């Protein structure tokens, strides 16, 4: 029998990104119970953000983490374990509570939507057992010893990262199938995957973080006609997304956009002095206004920048205002 949920007893859970500026920008960090998408061009900084989150979810509640483990499904070849190790060493040096053993990595190659669905269903089984049955651990992959079993058994999975969803779905579809049918089938698969992810996110209070690629936005219409145009034109989006001086659109179209709860756009911009400025922008979110935050990437990972500190920010503001 369906029962209403008492809203006054709901405590919104978030996992920190490890940086006070970024957490403040996101009102606490990555929310549990919903799907957050990180979209942006290659080398904008998506994977860095993602790798950092695999570690920060392990932080104790007192530091904004969820005392949790992370699951990392990487679809673009070999998972970047060395980079993960590097952030761990530089940022969380010597902390016994943050380690690669708490990051479970899908070992088998994920190339089709069916592979991905199967992997998520396995995660569902794991969550239900609430036991540690690592598919593979980042620690083993990096060749180091697995951490203390007692530490492992207290933690449950609190973060799921799929990096990226686009890769798996962009190539989907047999070549002899009509285009329209391919799109329909892909949309149905996307909705099916999303429904499963959202149910897991809500039932087990997981933060779900998915990355997506971008395509060039060829719709150069200045929006002079009044009317509700489809595709990427004016009417279907608030303002163009710009990265490296080009207009871009998140991949997988409108169907996929309907699946995510929160869309964050990671972009890079050339600064006047030849440097690079990076930004994290809210495209839509139920709890955040349209806004952006600059950040930098270094050996220690991602660090948000306050407005005053973003000396190269003027180039960015020209793009965004």
């Amino acid at each position, binding site marked *: *029998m*369906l*029962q*209403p*949920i*008492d*809203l*006054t007893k*709901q405590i*919104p859970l978030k996992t920190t990104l490890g940086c006070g500026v970024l957490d403040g920008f996101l*009102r606490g960090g990555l*929310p549990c*119970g*919903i*799907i957050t998408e990180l979209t942006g061009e290659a080398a904008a900084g998506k994977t860095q953000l993602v790798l950092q989150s695999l570690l920060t979810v392990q932080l104790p509640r007192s530091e904004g983490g969820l005392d949790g483990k992370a699951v990392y499904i990487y679809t673009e070849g070999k998972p970047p374990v060395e980079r993960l190790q590097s952030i761990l060493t530089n940022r969380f040096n010597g902390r016994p509570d943050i380690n690669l053993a708490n990051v479970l990595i899908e070992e088998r190659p994920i190339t089709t939507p069916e592979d991905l669905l199967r992997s998520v269903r396995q995660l569902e089984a794991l969550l239900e057992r609430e036991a540690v049955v690592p598919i593979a651990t980042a620690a083993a992959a990096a060749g180091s010893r697995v951490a203390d079993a007692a530490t492992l058994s207290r933690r449950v999975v609190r973060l799921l990262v799929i990096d990226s969803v686009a890769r798996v779905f962009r190539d989907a579809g047999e070549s002899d199938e009509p285009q329209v049918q391919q799109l329909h089938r892909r*949309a*149905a*698969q996307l*909705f*099916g995957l999303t*429904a499963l992810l*959202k*149910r897991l*996110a*809500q039932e087990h209070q997981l933060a779900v973080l998915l990355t997506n690629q971008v395509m060039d936005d060829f719709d150069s219409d200045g*929006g*002079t006609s*009044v009317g*509700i*145009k*489809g*595709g990427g034109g*004016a*009417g*279907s*989006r*608030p*303002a163009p997304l710009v990265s490296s001086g080009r207009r871009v659109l998140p991949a997988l*179209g*409108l*169907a996929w*956009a*309907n699946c*995510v*709860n929160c*869309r964050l756009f990671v972009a890079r911009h050339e600064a006047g002095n030849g440097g690079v400025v990076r930004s994290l922008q809210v*495209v*839509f979110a*139920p*709890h955040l*206004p*349209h*806004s952006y935050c600059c950040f930098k990437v270094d050996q220690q990972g991602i660090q948000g920048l306050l407005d005053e500190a973003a000396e190269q920010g003027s180039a960015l503001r020209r793009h965004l*205002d």
Partner: protein
Amino acid sequence: MLRQEVVTMPLPPHLRNKLLSAGFTNASELERCGGPVALARETGMTPEEAHEVLQLLGERLPAGSDWRAGAVSAATLLEAHLAAPRIVTMCRDLDELLGGGVATGQVTEFCGVPGIGKTQLGMQLAINVQVPAALAGAQGQAVYVDTEGSFMVERCADIAEGAVRHITAMAEKQAASGRPALAEGFRSGAVVFNVASLLRGIFYFRIHDYTEQLALINMLPRFLQQYPQIRLVVFDSITFHFRQDFTDMSQRTRVATLMAQQLIATAQTYGVAVVLMNQVTTKVMEDGSSKLVPALGESWGHAASTRVMLHWGVHDNERHAALFKSPHLPPGNVAFTVTADGVRGMPRGSRGGAGLANR
């Protein structure tokens, strides 16, 4: 005359059901209940509705006019429709577009792209349905059916806070112009309108697949009988779970049609506003251009008597609402904003291009 049964009284169906749910079976029981305020309290009606019922009773002809039993005159229906409370959006232009606000007793659909403000509007309506009758509010409660997980309680609390500030200010204005009843009601605690009470006034359901959705729609009539204060049911979104699971499109159409019929009947019987949030898809036209259309296709088009498309305007970050179907209102298009406090009208004197929302 005093033996007139409630079931045969010429009342709008939702009022009749309220009487029956409260245990009134005939006219003499109504006479004894002690006036419209007492009747309202016992049945969950508004004082205006209770007054209407008792007035009808006073005008009843002696037995012999039973031919009217079960039938309602067109005049009564019109009166009931005009008197039916509306739920404001707190954007004056949008309220005007809708003829004063979202109508109870009907199904209204809002469709639009992700991020345009469907969930924001849904939350705003779930808060605004609770506005006290002294400010012409519906003074009711809401059911919120969340199928996508976009309902975040912290955002709803923001919107509730914004509404409390807005309503408190209106109560003060009333007091300043010689009607201090509401402001005094707030002060004394007789009228409660704060963030906690507003959140408690929303019955929130989280739905994970289409069978749960259908089960909920089936149980809704019983739920509304159990909680007669409910005046609004929001489905956010009605479409999400129908965009997978169905390989057979004709089966999907059948299920969607059945769902629509049940929702229309529920809205009419219980006098609640049923608000459906819908997604949009891209339709490629014959000339190769593409258009945004409501999801679920043509068969779903009959579900709602009022349909509004939310879309981005020509200038960056400008939100619009376009009415494209209504029982009696002309089509129109207005601009609205979403601020830290919720859905609001455009600031006076601004052209749009609101840029970053204030926080």
